[in-house]
């Protein structure tokens, strides 16, 4: 699985590091906007793995998968930011912890 003299394993290692940083950030941060950015980091980690494996396996399927991930990421951001705007309209400066107020 050599690609331009570079093993796919290095791309996968980078992808793992990026995914872990995004996951830890998602758990640490309380601002919902920054949490969404961390989700974007995790999606990008997966995209790196898809493209590197697709190139290593000589298959365009990896690029096609990234295309669909991009679409899903865009819709996720649209819906997520709409939710953030809707929550902030009721209660400004809301953090992720304040969602517990939704309990009856």
């Amino acid at each position, binding site marked *: 699985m050599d690609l331009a003299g570079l093993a796919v394993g290095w791309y996968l290692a980078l992808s793992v590091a990026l995914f872990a940083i995004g996951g830890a950030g998602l758990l640490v941060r309380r601002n919902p*906007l920054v949490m969404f950015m961390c989700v974007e980091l995790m999606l990008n980690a997966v995209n790196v793995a898809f493209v590197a494996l697709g*190139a290593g396996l000589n*298959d365009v399927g990896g690029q096609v998968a990234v295309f669909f991930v*991009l679409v899903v990421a865009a819709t996720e951001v649209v819906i997520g930011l709409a939710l953030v705007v*809707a929550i902030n309209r009721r209660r400004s400066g809301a953090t992720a912890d304040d969602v517990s107020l939704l309990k009856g």
Partner: protein
Amino acid sequence: MAEAVFVVSAVIILAGAIGVVASRNPVHAALFLVQTLVGVAVLFVLNDAHFLAAVQVVVYAGAIVILFLFVIMLLGVDKAEELRIEPIFGQRPLAAVVGAALAAVLGAVVITGADVLTGLRRAGGERSLDGDATDIERMGRVLFGEFAFAVEITAALLTVAVVGAVVLTRRASRSDASETAGAAP
């Protein structure tokens, strides 16, 4: 050469990712996110996925991050967040432990599974990357051939997202509000 490009962009990507997680100001986090996304676009170019690199810059770094910045400015949450207070006791150490465990598990999967996939290497056909077709040509053929149904589903998904965003952010009009108020016991 490829190694040098990979190392430089990997450093840029990881620095941007840490910046997103660690910066106190959401605007700075969004700008660090742009750094990471551009680094990933460079890796796409390195893997001969030129179309995806362009889409990454236009859609992600262009549209999505601008949407983030727009909402940040709209809500006025561009003030620095106090990161030192911890509302949930032990959240940070636990998050660090979970992140390290995630990296360890995924790393183990990569190390043990690195040689498993080599047998699936494509020798030829429409989906192989050999030949002189450009990557956008190849992707177009596969997307509108083998994955045509998935593209249709994607169209439905985008429609649902647009309708959902409009419904979620719509202010209830006066008549609606009075009706709900009247209906409430």
